[in-house]
Every structure is written in structure tokens, then in C-alpha cells.
């Protein structure tokens, strides 16, 4: 079960993608990371459609790390569709964004985001944030909880 727990990272910026993956690895989180580069790709993966047709729908990511500013379909719209669908309604979604606009925070929580994290510029802080997210959302499902730090 644990090995199948995947992370869906929705991120259009390759730099941020690499840094996020690095931070996860850095913190010894070795779960499979699915990368979606825009909102459409994210929705296709989640609902096994488009390029992901035929994918086993029963396998859902343990957590979705969702950027807000995305090409095609933006993060808030993706969140809305996740929450609107019975299959993904309870999926943990963490907004991981550069924005600290009040408007974005209000909208995200309003649409049912589980968490809102602003990406720090300082990699040390960024890495720490990713570590905490990983621990919290991935290990919460473990039979032997490690607990939050």
C-alpha cells in the first residue's frame, strides 16, 4: 500500500518542479511523483482520461500539490473540478504557490483546499516546507504514524 502512495505535483515551472522533487528526495520521501505540467494534464490523470485513458482509477494520489498559476486550466479550476467529482471529492489538495494574495488564499480555502503553502525563495525554508508537507500528508496514512513534526 505504502509503495503505491503517489504524489501528484501540478507545476508548470521546471525549476520549481526540480526543486520540489529535490526537496522531497532530500527529506527521504521516495514515493512516486507524478508530474502534471498544466491543469488539463492534472485532470486527465485524476479522471483517467486523455493521455491517461485506461489508467486504474482506483489508484488516487495520496496528496495533490497544486500550483495556482497554470497554463490552460488554472489551479483554482482544477481544485473546483476535484471537489465537484464524487471520486475525488475527499482527495487532499495542498496549494503550493508563489502568491500570498489574500484573494488567492480566500478562494482556495473557499473551494476546499486542505492547505495553503507559499513557496519560500530561500531553499532552506522551501525544503523545510516540503518536508513538513510530505510527513504530514504521506505518513498520516501509515499504520504506524510517525506523527507531525
Amino acid at each position: 500500500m505504502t509503495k503505491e502512495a503517489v504524489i501528484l505535483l501540478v507545476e508548470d515551472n521546471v525549476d520549481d518542479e526540480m526543486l520540489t522533487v529535490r526537496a522531497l528526495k532530500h527529506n527521504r520521501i521516495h514515493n512516486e511523483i507524478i508530474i502534471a505540467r498544466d491543469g488539463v494534464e492534472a485532470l486527465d490523470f485524476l479522471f483517467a482520461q486523455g493521455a491517461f485513458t485506461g489508467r486504474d482509477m482506483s489508484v488516487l494520489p495520496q496528496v495533490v500539490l497544486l500550483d495556482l498559476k497554470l497554463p490552460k486550466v488554472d489551479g483554482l479550476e482544477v481544485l473546483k473540478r476535484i471537489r465537484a467529482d464524487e471520486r475525488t471529492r475527499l482527495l487532499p489538495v495542498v496549494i503550493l504557490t508563489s502568491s500570498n494574495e489574500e484573494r488567492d488564499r480566500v478562494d482556495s480555502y473557499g473551494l476546499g483546499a486542505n492547505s495553503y503553502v507559499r513557496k519560500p525563495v530561500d531553499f532552506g525554508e522551501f525544503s523545510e516546507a516540503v518536508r513538513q508537507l510530505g510527513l504530514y500528508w504521506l505518513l498520516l496514512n501509515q499504520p504506524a504514524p510517525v506523527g507531525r513534526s
Partner: protein
Amino acid sequence: MTLRMKLVAACGIALLILGGVSVLSYRSTVRADEDARWVAHTRIVLEKLNALTVDIISQETEQRGYVFTGEGSHLTSYNQGLNRLRSDLDDLRNLTADNPRQQQTIKRLEPLISKTVSGLREELAAHGPNAAQSAPTAGHAEAQDQAMQEIRSVISAMTAEEDGLLSERTDAAQASSRRMKIVIILGNMLAVLFFATAALAIYQEMGKRSMAEESLRQSEERFRLMTARVKEYAIFMLDPDGHVISWNEGASRIKGYAAEEIIGQHFSRFYPAEDIAKGKPDYELEIAAARGQFEDEGWRVRKDGSRFWANVVITALRDERGRLRGFAKVSRDMTERRRADEEIEHQNAQLKAANKELDAFSYSVAHDLRAPLRAIDGFSQAVLEDYKDHIPEEGRLCLERVRAGAVRMAQLIDDLLNLARISRTEIVRSNIDLSRLAEEVTSQLQASGDGRQVHVSISPGIVATGDRSLLRIVLENLLGNAWKFTSKQPVAEIRFGVQDESGERVLFVRDNGHGFDMRYADKLFGVFQRLHRDSEFPGTGVGLATVQRIIHRHGGRIWAEGTVGEGATFYFVL
């Protein structure tokens, strides 16, 4: 009592008097006729009495003539005389039927006459030609004379009675005629008096009316003079049907018609064709007549056909009895103002668009400028970690500087965005306990972990009206600065208080820190303006600019005093 009622009363009374006098004089005439009739009647009775006397004497004469002469003609006259006597008596009886006393007297007369006549007949029988020739006896003659005497006395009594009646009736007729004359004269005088009073009242009223008309004329003249020269407003009057009856200079200027060419014309020509088709001009008059006034803004047409945007007030004019006399119309050319309004609206729309653009720009800055900084920092760190064995010490220091630069730039971006946000966010005012807010900020600073002991004194109960989150930013910056600039002092002291300066409540944050040179005081509040090297006191130079903007948005002021090495005080008024 109104004048009309007074006049009606006066004329009514005069007419009543005249009517009464007429009735009285008619009745008096009727009475005079009657009196005259009675006078004539009395005369007839008197004549009859006279005739009766004559007839009796004549009977006697005829009888004597026959006795002495024996001529048949005397006998015939005598016999005819008998009949006349009877008819005389009958006539008298009839004539005096209205007078019981005379009737009584006649009853006495009848036997006397019968006796005389029978005496005469006896004498005739005894001495007539057909009888024995003898002289009448002396005794007989005496009796006859006596009877005649009696008859004469009765007749004269009757005559006296009738004479009395005659004079009585004549007097009565004269008296009533005199009274009537007085009544007629007095009545006519009274009537004339009342008519004269009414005439006087009418005359006076006419005087008053002409005065009122004069004053109305003057007031109209004043109004005309007052409005005539007004150029900013078209002021003109309409009759109840909407025809122009007066026109001022403003009307000529705004609408383009001269007074002489527009007076008498219907005012609907000032409206655009589509409004006329909709019946708008008449509708406006109806509303004005019903409600007293009508106000409108809309397009109107000048003489040359060009349109102008007008503010129009139509006021119904009514006289003291409430009858509609016409309308006063005041129009103002609002074209320029409307154009200005439209311009403002247009600029507002542009401003809104610009704000929206700025919003999008800020959002984009927040998002997109930070991502490369993260990459710079993150990959520098990656290099430092992954290749730490291959990088000399100097290279490591350089990469650390790269990282610090990226972090600092991120801070600058955040500060700038905050500054921009402060200008955009709406101020939500409430009563704020600034003392408590300052304490919260101070505990945050103490918890920030630099382990310093700073003596902070906060005056209690400083309350102000303002936006809580913005005022918090003010205190965070001012107290944060004080905290920062006292970092090199052995004993750091910060004070937040309030003082009265010529009736104004001035709040201040004072520290005994590094202070500043007053020569550069004007640079304190500029964006990115710094009075210290970053190595001495780190900062972005945006904090005080933010503070000033917040204070200004609250309608307040902020200024600072300082001495190098002794500290600084920031004063502000909200």
C-alpha cells in the same frame, strides 16, 4: 362679508323699498278711486233729496192749480208727479242702502209723504171740478202745511247727514293722499341712499382694483427686469396651453430665438422630434399642473437645430383662486457639465481599467518574479551541496552571496507589493486600542529570537479610529525600526505614547537608538531611500514609505525628529 354680498344686500334693500312704495301707492290709488266714488255717490244722494223736495212742492202746486182752475193738465201733471215721487223714494232707498241711519230717516219720510199725498188727494176729491165747488177748508190747509214742514225738516236732516259724509270722505281722501306722498318721498329717498351707497362701494372697489392692477403691473415689470438680463438661465413664461408669453436674454442665448420671433409660438419646438412624437412637452405641462412643478434633464433643440443638454424646471402659476394662469420655465444649458461628467466617467472607467491592469501586474510580479529567485537560490544551494568537495572556499562564499541576493530581492518584491496593496485596499474603520496592538507587536519582536533585552514602555489606553490591519503594519514598522536601530545600544529603550500639541493628539514612537541626521529627514519616507548602510542596519527602504502611505490614507500626517547617536522620534496624527 364680501363686497359682492354687500352690493347685493344694498341693492336688494333699495329694490324692496321701491317695491313696497309701489304696492302702497297702488293701494292708495285704489283707495282714492273709492273715496272719489263715495264723494260722487254722496252728491247724487244730495241731488236726489233736492229733487224729492222739488217734486213734493210741485205736487202741491199742481193739486192747487187743478183745484182752482179745474184744468185737466194740472191733474195729469199731478198724477205723473205721484209716480215720480214714488220712484224718487225708491231711488233714495237704494242709494242709501249702505247707510242704516238714512234708511231709518227714509222710513220716517215715507208716511209723511204718503200723508201729504193722501191729503192732497182728499182735497182734490172735495174741491175738484168733478166735486162740489168749494174753497178748501182752513183747517185742512194748516195740516197740509205742517206735513210739508215736517218733510222739509226730514229732508234737510238727510241733506245735513250727507253733507257731513261728503266732508268726512273728502277729508279722508285728502289725508290718505298726503300720507302717500310722504311714504313715496321717504321711500324714494331711502332707495336712492342705498343705491348711492352701493355705487360708492363699487367706486371704491374699482379704485382698489386699479391699484392692485398697478401693483401687479409693477411687480411684473420688476420680474421682467430681473430676469431679462439673466444670461445663464433661460427664463420664460408659457400660457396655460404652452405658448411662449415672455422671453429673457438667457433664453435667447441658449435657444437662439429672439423674443419677437418666439413669443406666441408653442414651446414644443424646443424638443427633439422624437420627444414631440412621444407627447413629452404636453406631458411635462400636465405633470407640472398636477404637482406644481416638473423637473427634467434631457436633450433640447436650438433654433439652428443643434441639440443641448438641458436641466429644466417647469412651475405651474396659479392665481389666488387656484386657477392655472400659465407656467414659468427655467432651463439651464448643461451640455458642458454633461460633457465634463462624461469625461469624468470615461476617466473613471480608464482608471478602473488601469487599476485592474495594475492588479494583474502585481499578481504577475508576485508570482512570476519570485519563481526565478527560487531557482537561483535553490540551485545555488544544490551546487553547494552536491559539489561541496569541488568548490573552493571563495566559490562557496560567492554562491552564498548569490543566494543572499535572491532572498533580498524576494523581500524587496514582497515589500513593494505590500506598498502597492496598501494603496488599493479599502480602509475599514473601527475603534482600535493602539496600546494593546503595540503590546502584541512588541511581544512578536521579543519572540523573534535575537535574545535582546529591550525596555519598551507603552502608554495605556491610546485609542484611535482606523483600519486595524493597516495600523498594525504602521506599528510593526515603527516599533520594528526602533527595535532594529537600538540593536547597538547597551540599554535599549523604546516608548510608545501620546502628547498634546496645540490641541492636537500626537502619537509617537521614540527610541534611544542610532538616530539620524536631520539634514536627510526628507528622505526618510521615500521608497528605497535609506540613511544607513545595509551592513549596519539591514532593510529594504520600503517600511517608512509604507507607514507614510497608510497614515496619509487615514487623512493623517507623519514626521520625524532625530539626532545621530541619540535616537529618533516618529510622530503621527491620525
